[in-house]
């Protein structure tokens, strides 16, 4: 399967140049860019591991690209995403977030069911990869 979180998951994986242009767009709006990675891409897992602090007041997209690549090199088998954060009043939230690296093999999620009263069920998702300990979930480098 292919996890389709993020703004551009239905497009072919973005090239370096495509990522750079999106970074340029974000910096042009004075958004703070940050890079995060995880080996537990459960849709409710909102706290991926931060790679360094969000970069405020940047003008040069190349600096962000260096950060992206440093994170990808350090975590070749993890999901890596790039977030752009808008600190202006009324937003104060992420305005753009897309995956810039994914593991070669994405085993996806098991849908767990618990029979409830009547015909109702309690549902839950468990990532197949998350059954293994952190750090051993996605063998094989994508980088």
């Amino acid at each position, binding site marked *: 399967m292919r*996890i*389709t979180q993020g703004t551009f998951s*239905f*497009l072919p994986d973005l090239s370096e140049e495509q990522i750079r242009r999106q970074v340029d*767009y974000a910096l042009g709006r004075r958004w703070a860019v940050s890079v995060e990675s995880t080996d537990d891409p*459960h*849709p409710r897992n909102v706290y991926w591991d931060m790679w360094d602090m969000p970069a405020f007041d940047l003008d040069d997209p190349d600096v962000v690209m260096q950060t992206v690549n440093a994170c990808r090199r350090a975590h070749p088998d993890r999901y890596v995403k790039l977030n752009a954060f808008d600190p202006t009043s*009324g937003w104060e*939230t992420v305005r753009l*977030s897309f995956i810039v690296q994914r593991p070669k093999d994405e085993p996806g999620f098991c849908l767990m069911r618990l029979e409830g009263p009547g015909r109702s069920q309690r549902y839950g998702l468990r990532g197949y990869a998350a059954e293994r300990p952190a750090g051993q979930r996605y063998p094989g480098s994508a980088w």
Partner: protein
Amino acid sequence: MTSPGRHKGSLWNTRENLIGTDNRPFTFSLPMKQDTVELPASDRTRPAKLPYDRYRSGVIPYRSMGYWQPDYVPAETDVLTLFRITPQEGVDPEEAAAAVAGESSTATWTVVWTDRLTACERYRAKAYRVDPVAGTGPGTSTPQQYFARIAYDLALFEEGSIANLTASIIGNVFGFKALRALRLEDMRLPVAYLKTFQGPPSGIVIERERLDKFGRPLLGATVKPKLGLSGKNYGRVVYEALLGGLDFVKDDENINSQPFMHWRDRFLFAMEAVNRACADTGEVKGHYLNVTAGTMENMYERAEFAKELGSVIVMIDLVVGYTAIQSMSRWARKNDMLLHLHRAGHSTYTRQKTHGVSFRVIAKWMRAAGVDHIHAGTVVGKLEGDPNIIRGIYDTLREPFTPERLPEGLFFDQDWADLRKVMPVASGGIHAGQMHQLLSYLGEDVVLQFGGGTIGHPMGIRAGATANRVALEAMVLARNEGRDIWNEGPRILQEAARHCAPLEAALETWKDVTFDYLSTDTVDFVATPTAC
């Protein structure tokens, strides 16, 4: 109320009104004499002269009753309205405006002495400005219309009650005989009043953080056919559409609990579909479960069941009424649930520009009442929507402050007092081939709903959903890269279709579909500087 008599320069021809059907004058005295009463000089707390005429029994023009005050300067805490008034032949516009002010506040058709028991000056609405509407009146095919501005003291309204606000402002006055037609075009709700409303239970920011979806419009579709599917077949449509790439699927406004599909069946099968699709994609997905029902008790019961099944969103129809909407909004805030509002029925009073209530006013009421989603027009689809009008409505829902912008129908500065933002929903006759227009007109904080444009896809529902998602992401990517999507849109879509056969098929199937009709609701504004 009734309006006997003919209208000559005033709504009330006083003498005629006082003639009974048998043409015999009534016996009480006529308010014709210009009396004033001298008060004792020692009484400093009362006016030196009392406008005795004002309170003599009988009928006098609204203008003379204090409802027309051209020198009134509205207070920051006043509720302000702008009405489009079409008076009957011969009715003076200032008197018509005063009558609207009177009938939407303290007045009745005749003088009542019990006014004197109140601080009536305060409770009277004040019409303070009247402007002729451009393009109407002599030399045009349209009877003369006027924009009338009226101010209402905050004390007239109960806190946190759209029902009370609307019972005052639109409660009685729209059937007034002396007016040919009347439309509430815009309102300024003061910050002091907005602070008494909850506003959207979640709002755009929290919705996006909960769904973990940023930087692009959300995608939805309404299940079709809207009537007749069994629960199991219905859930199939939900599953295919979500799996294909949509974020939401939606019950239609009239899907409640009918013989072919009881509400519990629909909820069970729809949530099976939602959870399957979440597992298959790793995304948060939702289905707007319509909890509209005949009673509040039934609505709460349905909403509770939706919550038990793990739904992120429930839906109600505008026809449930303002109080029911506010109740469901409180329920949604309490239960971490997004609240989707379908504007069922609104066109009966929002579409014709001479009479009714403009949708931007409904949008204001609904942001205050507190919904997270509201259908708000598409510009390019099959339903009514002039681009300027739609922009005014979208800004009303999404911005923290909307300045006066007459071309968009925004007649007042409106500070939203930090009420959360409502996500507008664009639905009705839109398809992937219009993606560049939709993104240009509507921006990215919107739900784009492609019902037919998903389910009618020649390769199936899942392919239809994928076509929409790919078209959307490609267009956002191109826009962010600085490309001119308005002009390059079709080329951008063709490029994206090279790696997406469903998009190629969608572009081919709907390439010539547009709904290019003249809008019935457009703005006519007088481009003169604001005096107040």
